[in-house]
């Protein structure tokens, strides 16, 4: 079985799962739905593994599989075709692998929900679109997946649609994604105009021959980056992601941590040829990434909802990845995508396990002391936290330090921001852990007695992910530790080549040391504050210091957007409707009718009814006509 023969099965299976579960959502039993839903993903995963290994043994690293002609108009031809190369094959593994674990987890987590079948069909659909996104051999197929995952995100965030706040969050996510999508689409148009094609295989070779700093390329990459900003929740479009936590927790783990939000990084890594030639764009990406990382980390410091903390942490980590992309560390960023997928999925699932145990209580102020009650969850989450905090030898350490080393080479200021963010990350993650698991239980005794460890279907994925989060770093072990940077070699087969790191080993050690020390200080500070000091975040209305207030209210970004965008647009809308449309344009139209009416009212007075006058006018008319013919004809 060759890759060409197998690849179409990978997205098709989840799609079949979607169709079966979607149609049978009311008739199939929950067990069957779960088996079908998870089974198709597992099958996909197995095929992906086969593909991955056959690709490894293959000399030809890139296979294009043509399915059918999709759109053709004039010179534009868009085939529906797949591209299997190292980059996409590894994405396949993540999506189907982590996807399967999360499906498995969901069979238990969502068991009591009446929308069980619907949930699984949506999840399968999401996997299908995500696979389409990474498999597409041109930007348009990628765009189908791109928007498709947005749709699934919309559906899953608004899964409990009877709560209108959730439905609003879903809409917000969709609309903000669409803002980015417009940028993406315009970028694609520009590419089509410039390169005459939207195929990767036609664009990249052409671009490779160009000089850096080409203005069109800069514009293309900026537009693509705008697209990535929307999908991967970067400043200024990140506010949808924290709201997206309205969805069920497995969704947050799969879509809003491990896969969909990293689509932007995937896309930029895929187009790294273009981005390499646009240093100006890279500069912007680095700055936006660093700023996002910092801002989100600051916000995460004071959040009290366990999922919100993780959400801001995700935004912050995504900022890291963009920082990496901006400074040219494509492999590093992609490496971080992998490790982040492991530990963030783990953390979300762990949080889900906590929430499940707490009967859908998400506020950390009501938790505490859960370590005894939920030992597996605690242990696995601890591993995840250590990984994200960047403590060696867990996976996060390696990926984060690769990015930071490149950032240092690019600009020490960006590196500084990165380290500060790392410090903050470690702090808020441990704060979350301590608030949740240590100290005393802060709910009622009755509630406490109901807290129990989750079933095996939920803990198994946790354990698997914990292992991955712990050891995931080895896939790209840097040279300084005697590794061979396997991932970098692998990805170079897909044309993703990152800038060489030109630092001495001692500098690298120093950089690593700095960030590790920062993380340890943060850990200790959090320990003294929340375990020794047993502090609990104050209630919502309680007074806070100015900085804490800013952080707690997310820099008032939602309010600002509401004020400078939503409100004015709505005001415009009402103005256009009530004044321009109804009064002005319709006024003119109705005015025309009215004036005709009035004029006829005036003119009809001429019809005095006086027959003599009529005759008089008639004669006048005849005379005038005769005069006219006499004089002019």
């Amino acid at each position, binding site marked *: 079985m060759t890759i060409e023969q197998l690849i179409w099965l990978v997205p098709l299976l989840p799609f079949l799962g979607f169709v079966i579960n979607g149609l049978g959502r009311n008739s199939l039993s929950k067990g069957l739905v779960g088996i079908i839903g998870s089974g198709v993903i597992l099958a996909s995963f197995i095929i992906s593994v086969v593909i991955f290994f056959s690709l490894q043994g293959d000399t030809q690293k890139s296979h294009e599989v043509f399915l059918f002609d999709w759109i053709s108009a004039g010179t534009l031809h868009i085939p529906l075709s797949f591209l299997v190369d190292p980059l996409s094959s590894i994405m396949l593994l993540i999506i189907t692998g982590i996807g399967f674990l999360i499906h498995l987890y969901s069979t238990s987590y969502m068991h009591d929900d009446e929308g069980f079948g619907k949930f699984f069909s949506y999840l399968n659909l999401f996997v299908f679109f995500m696979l389409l996104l990474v498999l597409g051999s041109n930007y348009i197929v990628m765009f189908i997946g791109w928007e498709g995952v947005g749709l699934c995100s919309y559906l899953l965030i608004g899964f409990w649609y009877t709560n209108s706040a959730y439905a609003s969050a879903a809409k917000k996510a969709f609309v903000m994604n669409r803002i980015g999508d417009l940028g993406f689409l315009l970028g694609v148009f520009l590419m089509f105009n410039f390169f005459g094609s939207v195929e990767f295989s036609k664009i990249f070779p052409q671009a490779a021959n160009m000089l850096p700093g080409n203005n069109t390329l800069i514009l293309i990459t900026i537009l693509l980056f705008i697209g990535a900003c929307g999908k991967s929740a970067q400043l200024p479009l990140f506010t949808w992601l924290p709201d997206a936590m309205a969805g069920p927790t497995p969704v947050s783990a799969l879509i809003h941590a491990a896969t969909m939000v990293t689509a932007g990084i995937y896309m930029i890594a895929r187009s790294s040829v273009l981005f390499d030639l646009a240093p100006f764009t890279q500069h912007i990406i680095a700055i936006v990434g660093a700023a996002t990382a910092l801002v989100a980390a600051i916000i995460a410091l004071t959040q009290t909802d366990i999922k919100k903390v993780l959400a801001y942490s995700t935004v912050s980590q995504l900022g890291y990845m963009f920082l990496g992309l901006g400074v040219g560390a494509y492999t590093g960023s992609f490496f971080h995508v992998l490790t982040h997928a492991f530990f963030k999925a783990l953390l979300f699932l762990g949080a889900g396990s906590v929430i499940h145990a707490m009967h859908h209580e998400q506020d950390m102020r009501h938790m505490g002391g859960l370590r005894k009650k939920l030992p597996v969850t605690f242990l696995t989450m601890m591993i995840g936290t250590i990984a994200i905090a960047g403590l060696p030898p867990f996976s996060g350490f390696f990926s984060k330090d690769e990015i930071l080393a490149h950032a240092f080479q690019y600009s020490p200021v960006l590196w500084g921001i990165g380290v500060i963010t790392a410090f903050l990350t470690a702090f808020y993650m441990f704060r979350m852990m301590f608030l949740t698991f240590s100290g005393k239980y802060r709910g009622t005794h009755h509630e406490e007695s109901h807290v129990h460890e989750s079933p095996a279907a939920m803990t198994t994925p946790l354990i698997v992910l914990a292992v991955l989060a712990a050891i995931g770093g080895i896939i790209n072990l840097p040279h300084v530790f005697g590794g061979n940077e396997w991932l970098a070699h692998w990805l170079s087969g897909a044309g993703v080549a990152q800038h060489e790191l030109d630092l001495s080993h001692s500098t690298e050690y120093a950089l690593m040391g700095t960030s590790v020390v920062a993380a340890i200080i943060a850990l200790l500070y959090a320990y003294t504050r929340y375990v020794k000091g047993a502090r609990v975040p104050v209630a919502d209305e309680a007074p806070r210091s100015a900085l804490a207030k800013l952080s707690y209210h997310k820099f008032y970004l939602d309010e600002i957007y509401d004020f400078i965008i939503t409100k004015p647009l709505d005001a415009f809308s009402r103005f256009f409707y009530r004044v321009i449309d109804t009064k002005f344009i319709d006024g003119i139209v109705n005015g025309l009718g009215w004036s005709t009416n009035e004029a006829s009212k005036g003119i009809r007075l001429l019809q005095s009814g006086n027959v003599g006058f009529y005759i008089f006018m008639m004669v006048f008319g005849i*005379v005038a006509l*005769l005069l006219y013919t006499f004089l002019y004809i």
Partner: protein
Amino acid sequence: MSTQVFYFVATLSIIFSLMVIFAKNPIHSVLYLILTFFTFTVHYVLLNAQFLAVVNFIVYMGAIMVLFLFVLMLLNLNNETEPSKSPLIKIVGVIAGCCLVVTLVGSFKAASINSPLILKNQGLGLVENLGKELFGPFLLPFELSSLLLLAAMVGAVLLSKKDEVEA
């Protein structure tokens, strides 16, 4: 000599028709109108249109004028019953009329058909000739005109009938 006859009769026509419109009493108007029509009959004769002359004499002077007189007497009108128009209207009317004639004459002058009238066919206006025309190419209009007359008769009768007592 006969050209003089034309001018003489033409002058009479004009004078009589002026009298028609300026006479105060409608009865006088009718009488002057009959005279005018008589001069027209003479004109027809001069043009050798004998059939028309006869028809004019009978229909206009006979039937139509009698109808006018009859109606006038039936309504018992006299000069007091007609409120005269304001002098302004009269003057404006006359001026408008003058404008009309000037325009008409001027435009005809521009057309300038001043070739003398030559009677090429002596029998043109005779009954025989016209009869052939009427019952030949103009048969259908002729028959239709009879319908018209019938309709007019019915209409006149219907109109002048007293209204039924309204319920």
